[in-house]
């Protein structure tokens, strides 16, 4: 039986939407410059290798109307820890296409996007609409957004080379967001964002299983996860950016998350950006994330059918992770050439350390020096390091 990769399913589509929220223009006074970007990324960690390639093009057709298109391909090889313990290497590919139109009228920017994401065993379609309004002497920007996502969830019961897809169900998600950005002084800007997401339908990852104590040689048996068919979450983020007396910027942000599954997440991040004349821009970041487990999550349950809902998906476990990243951008065309206003190339490397507080690493430890297996429920807590590498070129015209 082939298992898919991590839980990149619907979250991939939602993340795609989050991305669009980022791509949306800053102040609604002029639409952003035309640009084309070529992007390559590689994620290595936890037994997985995922490469990503993307192309993005953005063009204004009049001063008030712009179109943006993006194509993104993810390729996975490897298997995540809970599938490492159960099966073999997998390979999979995800293709995402998105298109956005933007219209600027006076101080308001309207934006409409469509995203389509396809994997062998997961299809997701999202529609997103937002508007952004500048007010109060352009010191304040109010943004409101709405999205709808519809997914088809399947399970591959064949192999990587000969897939047999069993379509298990559908999931639907709606997101409502609002944000306020405020210029506080000549050097300081702050923002607050709120996003409420509600999901319903088939919300579990079909490839993960729960385990419960049993009297077999392993000490535990596997069973299917049972998830609620609804989930509502609220996230609030505040951030501020400050211009330092010499030319540099420091950003601090905090996000609080809570949902009806009992997950509470806190994210803290600090970034520092340091330009060198018109040519180099260096950036460093540190991010710390901590979450509490979902109420129905358990690494190992006392017996089968212990409670109505049960999950052993590491995304819902109590965990923390810390990221340290650095980025360098070099402007090889700082002042333009022919139709190009500017050209840059960027290298971004992040190192993430993941540490789980109630998710155990159930791979076989027979060949370790200490020898022997661990008794069920006493395996070491899972932890791993991942490196995310990004290389991209941006042309502005």
């Amino acid at each position, binding site marked *: 039986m082939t298992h898919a990769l991590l839980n990149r399913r619907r979250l991939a589509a939602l993340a795609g939407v989050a991305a669009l929220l980022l791509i949306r223009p800053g102040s609604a006074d002029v639409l952003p410059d035309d640009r084309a970007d070529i992007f390559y990324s590689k994620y290595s960690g936890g037994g997985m290798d995922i490469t990503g390639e993307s192309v993005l093009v953005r063009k204004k057709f009049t001063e008030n109307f712009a179109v943006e298109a993006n194509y993104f391909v993810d390729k996975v090889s490897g298997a995540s820890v809970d599938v490492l313990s159960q099966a073999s290497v997998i390979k999979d590919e995800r293709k995402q296409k998105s298109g956005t139109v933007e219209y600027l009228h006076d101080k308001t920017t309207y934006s409409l996007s469509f995203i389509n994401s396809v994997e062998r065993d997961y299809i997701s379609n999202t529609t997103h609409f937002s508007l952004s309004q500048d007010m109060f002497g352009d010191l304040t920007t109010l943004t409101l957004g709405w999205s709808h996502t519809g997914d088809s969830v399947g399970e591959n019961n064949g192999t990587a080379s000969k897939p047999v897809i069993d379509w298990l169900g559908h999931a639907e998600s709606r997101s409502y967001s609002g944000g306020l950005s405020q210029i506080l002084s000549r050097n300081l*800007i702050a923002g607050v964002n709120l996003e409420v997401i509600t999901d319903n339908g088939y919300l579990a990852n079909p490839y993960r299983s729960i385990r419960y104590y049993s009297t077999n040689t392993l000490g535990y048996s596997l069973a299917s996860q049972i998830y609620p068919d609804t989930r509502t979450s609220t996230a609030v983020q505040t951030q501020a950016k400050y211009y330092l007396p010499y030319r540099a910027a420091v950003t601090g942000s905090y996000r609080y998350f809570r949902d009806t599954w009992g997950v509470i997440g806190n994210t803290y991040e600090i970034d520092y950006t340091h330009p060198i004349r018109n040519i180099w821009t260096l950036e460093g970041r540190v991010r710390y994330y901590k979450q509490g487990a979902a109420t129905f999550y358990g690494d190992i349950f006392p017996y089968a059918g212990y409670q109505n809902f049960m999950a052993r998906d590491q995304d819902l476990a109590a965990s923390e992770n810390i990221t340290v990243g650095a980025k360098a951008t070099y402007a090889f065309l700082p002042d333009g050439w022919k139709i190009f206003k500017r050209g840059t190339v960027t290298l971004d490397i992040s190192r993430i350390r993941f540490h789980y507080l109630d998710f155990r690493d159930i791979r076989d430890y027979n060949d370790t020096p200490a020898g022997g297996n661990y008794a069920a429920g006493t395996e070491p807590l899972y932890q791993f390091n991942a490196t995310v590498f990004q290389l991209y070129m941006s042309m502005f015209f």
Partner: protein
Amino acid sequence: MRSPRPVLLFGAILLLSACGNIQPWVKPYERDRLADPIMAWDRDAISSAYLDHVRETREGSRGATGSAGGGCGCN
């Protein structure tokens, strides 16, 4: 009988006019630093989107990851 609506409209306009008396404290010609690209909330959307994607697929949290606003305020 007189309708209360015009009075309510009048009251609302008065309230709004009070707001109008607070002048923007950063003038458009003082936006030089805010217009600097390093003060943009997100210089490389394609990269931030990717990192957000990496996180959302491994963490239970989702949403509220961006901001709009700031900049030169021109036009």
